[in-house]
């Protein structure tokens, strides 16, 4: 997926190395292979590939990773802009 990139410096992914216990679940679940565990700590290899799905943050046992999860879908975002239609769906 290296050839697919959208805008840079927008993802809300944040990682606190101090809190990491090196379990490696983030590296397992990330569909864009952003994390790897080296010397007992997770490392962020490719932050710009993040699509904010939230799998890493949900499964992180120590909340070392945080991200505001959501779907990168224009239709869905328009629906959240409209009054009274928050949380409707597109897929």
């Amino acid at each position, binding site marked *: *997926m290296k050839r697919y990139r*959208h805008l840079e410096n927008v993802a809300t992914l944040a990682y606190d190395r101090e809190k990491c216990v090196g379990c490696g679940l983030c590296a397992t679940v990330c*569909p864009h292979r952003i994390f790897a565990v080296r010397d007992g700590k997770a490392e962020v290899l490719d932050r710009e590939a993040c699509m904010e*799905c939230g799998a890493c943050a949900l*499964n992180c046992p120590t909340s070392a990773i945080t991200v505001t999860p959501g779907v990168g879908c224009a239709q*869905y975002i328009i629906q959240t802009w409209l009054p009274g239609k928050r949380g409707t769906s597109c897929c």
Partner: protein
Amino acid sequence: MPAAAGRIPRLRTGPTALDRLGTCRARLGLDRNHYTVNPGLYAVGAPGPDSPVVVTANYKLTFDTVRFALAGRDVWLLVVDTRGINVWCAGGKGTFSAAGVSEQVKKTGLERVVSHRRLILPQLGANGVRARDLRKACGFEAVFGPVRAEDLPRYLDHGIDEAMREVTFSLRERAAVIPVELVLGWKPLLGAFAVAAVLSLMGHGFSLAAVWSRWLVAAGGTLLGLFCGSVLFPLLLPRLPRVFSLGGAGLGLAGALTLPLFFPLAAWQTLAGAGLWTVALSSWLSLNFTGSTPYTSPSGVEKEMRRAIPVLAACTLLAAILFVAGNFSGGSA
């Protein structure tokens, strides 16, 4: 087949004509919101107490992909009630979750059917399932298997590898979402045709033939925009700029330049108006394609939308003005 928890249905692992028809209908967007199977436990082949348990969603397109991929295997298939939504989206919505999976584990009495305590979950369900919550809720350990169902046989034999863990967006995968984009777009398309008809009423000469010839130009521009934004854009995506609306606008411009070939007698303003509409429509449809890709983030899409939408709205207005101005200038033939 009989098992400790009562009779469990055994699945076919090859598609019937009805399955193929259903797949086509779902891919065309005809009833993809109601294309479901009953949640519960199913047998693939002749599984026993030691056989692996694969978990999936109750969207029939997903369910079919998984059971056909498991042809020739002896596996339990646990189908979670995701209201007919695929694993990835259901994970985001919260139906493919630790609670949803454990509910089916308990309902089906899975702990009496198998001797182990291990569930193989699709990796793309990890945005909905917190593995440790699943263990707490039903005592089963969650193991994340491959992203794609087609990798399941290799996974069951050899375990996981990096290629199975990464999402892809191949030409084939991009082409598969084109029909649904086109079919779901028919209502806005009719709307565009109607607006084009109203605009075509304004112009030099009010005969039916004059109105019709003006409408054809607008409708032609609309169809070109639809083709560029919903067919060409997905196919060419890896070769386009990373900003979706720019790539779509570029393809729309290429399409718009062919308009004079179709309508050699129309005024240049009319053609410029229709062409600008082609560009704006193609750009808008491309922006909407973000929802079909597996790599755009909500933060990125929202940022692009905030910049693109005012420009596209202005272009659409300018397109209408140019179109009508051209029609008054006399080139209505």
